[in-house]
């Protein structure tokens, strides 16, 4: 009990606040690595899967607010990681709890400490979410009082710093999170060395591991850095090219758009999330910012071909604008909540992409069939 009382007393001293660029302040208690940070605040409505979110490179540059209030319950483990590191700028939650799960090897608090990422709990995340829903995603500054960098700043100063930050629009974050050199991806439980399997070259714009795991079920997978040229890729004689998910603004990743243009028609392609946006832009479409993006595990998406509805995992702020879809693209999937475009297929070339995450992690597995679709496409 004494330990608990100490914890509660300590908590009273570990104050932190999150200052939004519009001047709104959210108070809470610091956890994880105690340091100040700046980023864009987004929310995610998934009720489980925080470890996958933490390790998803698509969150680079962002503070993720988890709307589900009890976080940390099942700790973290060695398997549920989606990349080599933690890419988000900070975690905003309502309540931090101690773990209980048979696979847990560490608490969330320790995990963030180790990865040098700050977190804030005790935040009224519902109020924050509604604020973001009504006013759009915002730049924010997280300040840890009395500790961290040792510098005391006022709320006004924090707001100023949030405003002053460059933000994500027009930023090429893919370049920041991509791998430094190409490598072959091996799934521990599958033998992917069989040379009879087709070769898929996967562009890493911030790829999630479970995408690669799904691809290795039917292909040898070579992951290449975001800036690898089309010529280099073609020289590898791939049977298919995969365009990965990734952070920030697709319009800023101009080199990838050029590469995709060069690859279109020469090799079958599949894209997910950022990869979907890039494929669409390369085909002539434009992307724009959604007010507060799609971040959750419960979005209904309709497959326009079959009429079936998939419950999907989503994480994006930008989307293909319906009015800009060129003649050569067919819209294959739409979001039933807001009608936004969730998938396209190229009418002339073997290429398709989806805005959401068929690889899930976190989220439902309803859309796994898309990988089968890619498998069929490359074996033709």
């Amino acid at each position, binding site marked *: *009990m004494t330990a*608990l*009382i100490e914890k*509660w007393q300590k908590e*009273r001293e570990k104050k932190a606040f999150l200052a939004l660029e519009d001047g709104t302040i*959210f*108070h*809470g208690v610091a956890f994880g690595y105690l340091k100040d940070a700046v980023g864009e605040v987004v*929310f995610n*409505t*998934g*009720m*489980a*899967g925080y*470890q*996958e979110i933490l390790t998803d490179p698509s969150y680079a540059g962002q503070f993720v607010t988890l*709307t*589900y*209030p*009890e976080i940390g*319950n*099942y700790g973290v*483990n060695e398997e*549920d990681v989606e990349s080599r590191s933690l890419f988000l700028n900070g975690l905003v939650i*309502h*309540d931090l*709890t*101690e*773990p*209980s*799960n*048979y*696979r847990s090897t560490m608490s969330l608090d320790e995990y963030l400490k180790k990865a040098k990422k700050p977190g804030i709990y*005790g935040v*009224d*995340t*519902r*109020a924050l*979410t*509604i604020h973001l*829903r009504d006013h759009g995603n915002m730049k924010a500054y997280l300040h840890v009082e009395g500790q961290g960098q040792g510098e005391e700043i006022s709320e006004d100063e924090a707001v100023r710093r949030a405003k002053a930050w460059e933000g994500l629009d027009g930023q090429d974050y893919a370049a920041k999170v991509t791998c430094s050199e190409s490598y072959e991806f091996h799934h521990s439980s599958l033998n992917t060395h069989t040379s009879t399997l087709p070769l898929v070259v996967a562009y890493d714009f911030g790829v999630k591991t479970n995408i690669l795991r799904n691809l290795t079920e039917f292909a040898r997978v070579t992951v290449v850095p975001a800036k690898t040229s089309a010529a280099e890729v073609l020289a590898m004689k791939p049977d298919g090219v995969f365009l990965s998910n990734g952070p920030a603004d697709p319009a800023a990743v101009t080199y990838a758009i050029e590469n995709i243009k060069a690859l279109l028609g020469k090799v079958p392609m599949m894209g997910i999330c950022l990869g979907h946006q890039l494929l669409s832009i390369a085909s002539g479409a434009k992307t724009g910012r959604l007010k*507060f993006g799609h971040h*959750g*595990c*419960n*979005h*209904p998406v*309709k497959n326009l071909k079959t*009429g*079936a*509805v998939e*419950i999907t995992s989503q994480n994006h702020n930008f989307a293909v604008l319906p009015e800009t879809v060129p003649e050569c693209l067919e819209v294959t999937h739409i979001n*039933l*909540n807001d009608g936004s475009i969730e998938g396209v297929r190229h009418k002339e070339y073997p290429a398709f992409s989806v805005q959401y995450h068929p690889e*899930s*992690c*976190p*989220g*439902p*597995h309803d859309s796994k069939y898309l990988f089968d679709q890619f498998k069929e496409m490359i074996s033709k």
Partner: protein
Amino acid sequence: MKRSDIKSVMLIGAGPIVIGQGCEFDYSGCQAIKALKGEGYRVILVNPNPATIMTDPEMADATYIEPISLEYLTAIIEKERPDALLPTLGGQTALNAAMDLARNGVLEKYNVEMIGANADAIDKAEDRNRFKEAMIKLGLDLPRSKSAHSMEEAIQVRNEIGSWPVIIRPGFTLGGTGGGIAHNEDEFAAIVRRGLDASLNTEVLIEESLIGWKEYEMEVMRDKAGNAVIVCSIENLDPMGVHTGDSITVAPIQTLTDREYQAMRDDSIAVLKEIGIETGGSNVQWAVHPETGRRIIIEMNPRVSRSSALASKATGFPIAKIAALLAVGYTLDELRNDITRETPSCFEPALDYVVVKVPRFTFEKFPMAEKKLGTQMKSVGEAMAIGRTFKEAYRKALRSLEVSNPLDLHDISSFDPWFKREIAEMDAFEKYLKSFGSLKAIPTDVFAQAKTMGFGDKEIGKLFEISEVDVRTYRYELGIHPSFGAVDTCAGEFKAITPYYYSTNACREEGVGCRGRCTKEDSIPASKKKIMILGGGPNRIGQGIEFDYCCCQAAFALKKRGFEVIMVNSNPETVSTDYDTSDKLYFEPLTLEDVMEIYEREKADGVIVQFGGQTPLNLAMKLKAAGANVIGTSPEDIDLAEDRDFFKRLVEEVGINEPPSGIAHSVEDAVKIAEEIGYPVLVRPSFVLGGRGMAIVYKEKYLRSFVEEAVKVAEGKPILIDKFLEHAIELDVDVVSDGETTVVGAILEHIEPAGCHSGDSASVTPPISLSEKIIDEVRAYAHEFAKRLNVCGLMNLQLAVKDNELWMIEVNPRASRTVPFVAKAIGEPLPGIAARCMAGEKLKDIGFTEEKKLTYSCVKEAVFPFAKFPGVDITLTPEMKSTGEVMAIHDSEHIAYVKSQIAAGSPLPLKGSVFLAIRDEDKKEAVKYAKELDKLGFTIYATRGTSTALWNEGVKSRAIYRVSEGRPNALDLIRSRTVSWIVNTNEYGAQAAVDDIRIRSSAVVAGIPVTTTLAGFESAVQGLAEENAAKLYQVVSLQERNLASR
């Protein structure tokens, strides 16, 4: 798309409330009826439970208050010719009844299509072997198990499993009746025997024990296109081994990673597909080993269940409504989400709060029942609470229960470490708070933190032995108030339209509460007048669906009159907590603290306390003192009626007899008073609910032992002793008054003589044995009491008639348990009318000024949970024991009685053998009825004493030993099912003879009807004598009756 080839749909309700099947099926049925009617289908409903909202005449197109039996359902189908039967919304009762209709070829004969789930899918889900086969096909892990149809087979299976304990589950029953966990051979034999008896197909499943494993539930919806969503995931705190209905549960799942959850999701959807549930909601249960993660499928319910009701309330997703619409051909993406109105129903609700459900038990009513949780459900009700954290939701749920030791029966050490730690932290925090020494010494931020953990004012007060009002006053000084969050299905992602709220203190903005901060979006200033209605909280014996019925009726009536109606309740099973029953719903505990925060936030114009039973009534004075405007009969007048001295004076002034009485503070007092007023006496503690601790005592010896017990129950309050009016006829009278005019709703005559709790007694209206003069007197007294108590709203009087003289027993100026029955009988929405009076209207403006004259007879019969508590005495006493009731209507009161027995699940045999064990004072009367039975061709068995009495009057009978006298005895007759009816009356007040208890409880377990009163015996015999098949199975809908009577 909606099917146009069907025009009419028949719906079967769940019948009376029993343990394992509560008012959640009224909720699901109501949603379904509204949805189907909204789509233009003709809806035909069968349900003999008069206390349900679904059976209100304005709900379905044709409402049959008829027994749910093959004969009646067939008669209704023959008459109504529905195109389709939707069997998945009336619990196991409806499912079993539908299967019965299918098996007997009735559906085929009348060309009725089963929609929602077909007979094969239901069979596949319910038949243990077929289910197991299907799960193996899917590659799912199962406990080692096998079913058995006999004791020998059972022992063989047990040996194959090879380890203790093993679980025994009977096939085709309600709420796990007859099941159990056996740790050794003796227990095994006992449970298997009971299970084989309880199973409709004489089958038990014996399986490897998963005791201690983590238990999870998934609520799945599926449409005909194969789209499937998980509406809600639920984790049980009590691990495997405790029935999920008795478990504390939490939504969503707390201790699984996304990977583990998603695998369970995939498998749950696959289960529905494999079983063949084409449309609708099902519940899939899983067990997970806490250390290895091995996951085993437990079962699936191919229908809307108790958990679906909880899931609907927890998420805002109306499972029953959507299930009904999917059954008539819609797909999930074609239906809108009512809460957001923008997004489709084809989604999985995202929660940004935690929901905790806790069960409420009534073991105090059944002192002889085993007070231990197991695989057989024993709880009678539940409370649900919503909070931003587990701690907050958990504490809110516990305080909603209104019991002092809510965790008594739960083994916290068996909970997952995550929950154990959460609970331990709360306990530690309590000590931490206490360590400050006094309330005002607690630092403000620590006090605020206590609130974020869900500590109520009352609980904090207890720590320092000060009142909840003192803590509340101090909290107001500090300015700490909860904020309110919306249950919006989407964690704030979209704007919610339907206002469904919960309070939370867990937002730590600025270290204190943040009223209005969380949900700026939803506090809409209303132009209408706002009236709050307080519900009844968790169901318990004595306070259940009847009061929810009154609350809902009041809401409907006031909404129609242009008020903004705000409902407050904590019971997830109810219609009152459906988001569209009122204009605004607050899912909150019914305490001074919680209610006043809502009252003040809403700036309500008035609050109604008289419809929710004792729970809101207990709050009335406190609410008034805190500044709330309690409308209707004033809290002072309600209280006065409970005040014995005042009541005595009132009775004297009115000039009616009252049984002589006295107040005792000790055993000696009691003995003295009893000698003065004369035996038998009625003994009870003051201030009780549902007759708790009451008894009729004939002898000093019993009085002494009883009063000793009663003193304990009464916790220092005095014991009341009344002269008991032996063999009197008891009356229940429900009236409505606007303060000027008073109208009698109905006068109910009890079929059992005075002494059995009014909630347990069968009763009939119009009265059958009262003179017009007595009835006139009753009316006059009703008017007089309403006037003198300044009644505005409902009032219930209990009177007794002895030797043609009226005696006053009790007056309660509030809704009573019989109000829904009366409303059904007379075809008038009595609570709605009362609510309108309370809101200021006059009866003459409403157009209800005359007592209705009925041309038919309505019988109410109570339904008891005895089968759940083997070994418990089933004798009716002043202590209420029933969980539910049924209604039967017929032109003949005797046929109505016989029908009520069918509806209550213990149909009297039309022929066969009857066993009579009659106490001496009843023998003379009983012989007359036995003669009738003899004439009807019954074979009569009787105890030796009874047999002699019969022989003396020339009635043939076979004498049988009582249990302790030798064999063959009564128990042998029961076990061999030689007798099909038992009439057993025993002496009041006496400690019920062990023999009698054994006879009756074995009969209940064997499903043999037992009549325990002479009056019941009389009605039954007359009904059987008069009966002929054509008359008995005559079915008339409520709508036809109401039209005919107008």
